[in-house]
C-alpha cells in the first residue's frame, strides 16, 4: 500500500537512507531491494513530501516511530489542488478504510501543518472547520488521542527553504500511522552531557548512525575511535551492547574525574554500560588470532585530520627511519608512554575496512564518516571500497564552504578470506615502509584551512559561487 511520508526538512540526503535502512531492520532484509518511492505532482526531489510503498501498516509504524527524520507517515485519505478537490477525494475514499477510525467510542485530534509557512490558530481552526463533512463520531482529545489526523497545505508562500517555488498548491489529508520521537534529541543533546570532547558526535547524527547500522537489542556494536563515547550512547539507546577503543588513554580511562567520563555519559541516561572500553591502536589491533565475525555493527567517526588528527603506534622519527627503535629500559617499562606518529586518512580507512571485514558478522554493517573536499567542478568523489562490502548508502552533510563529510553505510556481503587477509597485511607493511609518502597524500587539513582564494565579481565584492541551499540538486 502507498503511504504519504513527510520528512523534516533537514539532512536531506539522510532521510530516505534512514527510512530504507529501518525498513530493512524491521523487515529482516539487509536492505538490498530498495523501496518504491513516488513524488507528489509538481514536487521537487528534495521536497519533504514523498509517497512510499510498504507491505504493511505495522512496518510503516515501526519505521516512523524509530526514525529521527520522519515527521509522519500517513494513510492518505485525500489530496487536491483546492479544498473542494480535497473534499471530493476524501468523500470518495472507501468507507471501510475510514469508519474504523471515526467510531463513537474513540478519541481523535486533527493537526494542521504546512511547508514554508506558520499557520495561525484562527487559520488552523478555519481549516479544521472545512473538514466538518467527515463524519467524526468520536470525541476530540488533544493530549492523547486514539487517532491522529493531519491536514497539510502547501502553497507558494514565498518561503520554501531553498526548494524551487511551488508550482501548484497541494493539500493532503491523512491518518497518522507513526512519527519520529524527536524528544530524545532534547534528552541527549550535547549541551547537557557531562563529558564532552572536541569532536563529540551530535546526538541527532549519532542516532542516525545507529539507524544506518540497523542497531537493535542484543547486538554488539564496536567503535574503534570511541573518544567520549557519543556514538555508542546513540547505539545503546536503541538497545545495543557496546564496545569501544581509543588510542588516547586519558579519554577512555580518566575522563575529567570519577563522575565525568565515558561511563558517566551512559549512567547519565540510564543506559547499560559499555561491555568494554580499552586502549588500543586500530593500526595494530590486539585481537587474538582466529577471532572473527564478533560484531554486528561498527560505527565510528574516524580521525580524518581536520578537527582531530589520528595517531598510531611508532614514533614519528622511527617511522621516518631516522632512528632505531628506542629500547625501553626495564625499570621504566611500567610507566612508559609510547610515542605515536600521525595516522594518514588512507591508512586509517584501510585499517578500518580490514577490521570490519574480519570482525563483522555476515550482513553486518560498517557506518562511518568520510571527508570530501568541495571543489568547483570536482568529479563525483570516489569512496573506499572492499571486496567484502557493498556500499548501501552515502549521505553528504556539508560542513563548510570547503568540505563536507559523507556518512557511508557498507554491508558485509562476502566472507573474509585468507587472500584478503594477506593482501591487507602487505598493504599494512607498505604504509609502514613509506610512512612519509602516504602522509603527504592526505592533505585534507591544509586544503580546508589554507587561505581562501576569494572570488571577486569585478566590483571587488566577495561572493560565494556555491548555493547556500543545503540540498544538492537545486
Amino acid at each position, binding site marked *: 500500500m502507498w503511504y504519504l511520508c513527510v520528512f523534516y526538512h533537514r539532512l536531506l540526503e539522510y532521510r530516505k537512507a534512514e527510512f530504507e535502512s529501518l525498513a530493512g531492520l524491521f523487515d529482516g532484509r539487509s536492505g538490498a531491494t530498495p523501496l518504491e518511492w513516488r513524488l507528489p505532482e509538481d514536487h521537487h526531489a528534495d521536497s519533504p513530501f514523498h509517497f512510499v510503498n510498504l507491505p504493511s501498516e505495522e512496518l510503516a509504524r515501526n519505521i516512523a516511530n524509530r526514525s529521527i527524520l520522519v515527521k509522519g507517515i500517513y494513510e492518505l485519505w485525500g489530496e487536491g489542488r483546492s479544498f473542494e478537490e480535497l473534499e471530493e477525494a476524501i468523500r470518495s475514499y472507501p468507507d471501510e478504510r475510514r469508519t474504523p477510525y471515526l467510531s463513537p467510542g474513540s478519541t481523535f485530534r486533527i493537526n494542521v501543518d504546512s511547508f514554508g509557512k506558520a499557520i495561525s490558530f484562527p487559520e488552523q481552526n478555519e481549516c479544521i472547520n472545512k473538514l466538518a463533512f467527515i463524519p467524526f463520531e468520536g470525541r476530540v482529545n488533544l493530549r492523547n488521542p486514539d487517532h491522529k489526523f493531519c491536514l497539510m497545505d502547501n502553497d507558494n508562500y514565498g518561503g520554501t527553504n531553498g526548494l524551487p517555488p511551488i508550482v501548484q498548491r497541494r493539500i493532503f489529508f491523512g491518518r497518522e500511522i507513526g512519527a519520529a520521537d524527536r524528544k530524545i534529541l532534547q534528552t541527549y543533546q550535547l549541551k547537557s552531557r557531562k563529558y564532552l570532547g572536541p569532536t563529540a558526535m551530535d546526538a541527532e547524527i549519532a542516532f542516525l548512525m545507529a539507524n544506518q547500522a540497523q542497531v537493535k537489542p542484543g547486538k554488539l556494536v564496536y567503535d574503534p575511535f570511541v573518544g567520549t563515547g557519543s556514538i555508542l550512547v546513540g547505539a545503546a539507546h536503541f538497545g545495543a*551492547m557496546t564496545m569501544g577503543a581509543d588510542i588516547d*588513554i586519558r579519554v577512555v580511562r580518566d575522563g575529567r574525574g570519577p563522575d565525568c567520563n565515558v561511563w558517566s555519559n551512559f549512567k547519565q541516561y540510564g543506559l547499560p554500560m559499555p561491555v568494554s*572500553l*580499552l*586502549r*588500543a591502536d586500530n593500526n595494530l589491533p590486539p585481537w*587474538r*588470532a582466529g577471532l572473527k565475525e564478533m560484531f554486528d555493527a561498527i560505527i565510528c567517526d574516524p580521525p580524518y585530520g581536520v578537527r582531530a588528527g589520528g595517531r598510531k603506534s611508532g614514533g614519528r622519527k622511527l617511522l621516518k627511519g631516522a632512528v632505531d627503535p628506542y629500547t625501553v629500559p626495564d625499570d621504566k617499562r611500567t610507566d612508559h608512554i609510547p610515542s605515536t606518529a600521525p595516522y594518514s586518512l588512507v591508512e586509517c580507512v584501510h585499517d578500518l575496512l580490514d577490521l570490519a571485514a574480519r570482525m563483522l558478522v555476515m550482513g553486518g554493517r560498517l557506518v562511518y564518516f568520510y571527508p570530501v573536499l568541495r571543489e568547483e567542478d570536482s568529479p563525483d568523489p570516489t569512496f573506499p571500497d572492499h571486496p567484502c562490502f557493498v556500499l548501501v548508502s552515502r549521505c553528504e552533510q556539508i560542513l563548510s564552504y570547503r568540505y563536507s563529510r559523507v556518512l557511508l553505510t557498507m554491508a558485509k556481503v562476502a566472507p573474509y578470506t585468507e587472500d584478503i587477509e594477506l593482501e591487507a597485511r602487505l598493504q599494512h607493511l607498505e604504509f609502514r615502509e613509506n610512512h612519509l609518502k602516504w602522509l603527504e597524500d592526505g592533505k585534507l587539513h591544509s586544503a580546508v584551512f589554507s587561505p581562501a582564494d576569494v572570488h571577486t565579481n569585478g566590483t571587488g565584492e566577495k561572493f560565494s559561487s556555491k548555493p547556500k541551499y543545503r540540498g544538492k540538486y537545486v
Partner: protein
Amino acid sequence: MRLLTHNMLSSNIKGVANGFPLRIEAEKVVEKEVELNTDFLRNMFAKIEWKALVEASKTLGYAELPDVAEPSMLDSDEFLNRFHHALLELHLEEGALVCPETGRKFPVNKGIPNMLLHEDEV
C-alpha cells in the same frame, strides 16, 4: 575489564606467535550486576574460547563454569546464569594482563586494559 574482553585480546607484540590467552594478574576484582540477555549470550557462545574463559574466571575467584561446554547447555537456565556471570559481571578493576610468551605486562587500571605497544614492540 570483563572476561568477554579478555577472551578477545591477545598480545600483539612483534614476533610473538601465540599471545593468547593473556594471563591475568588480579589486584582488585569487582562484581557488577548486569541484566541477563539470553540472545546476546547465545550469540557470543559460539565465538568464545571456552577454555580461556574457564581459566580466567578461576583466576578471578569464580570456579562454577564446567570445563567443557556444548551448545546444548544453552537450554539450561543455570548454565546461562553462570556463563552470564563469568562473561559480563566479573570485572578486573586493577591488575595486569601478561603476555604468555614474553611476560610483558599490559596494565589494567580503572577497568581499562592498556594494549598499546612500546616503540620496540611494534
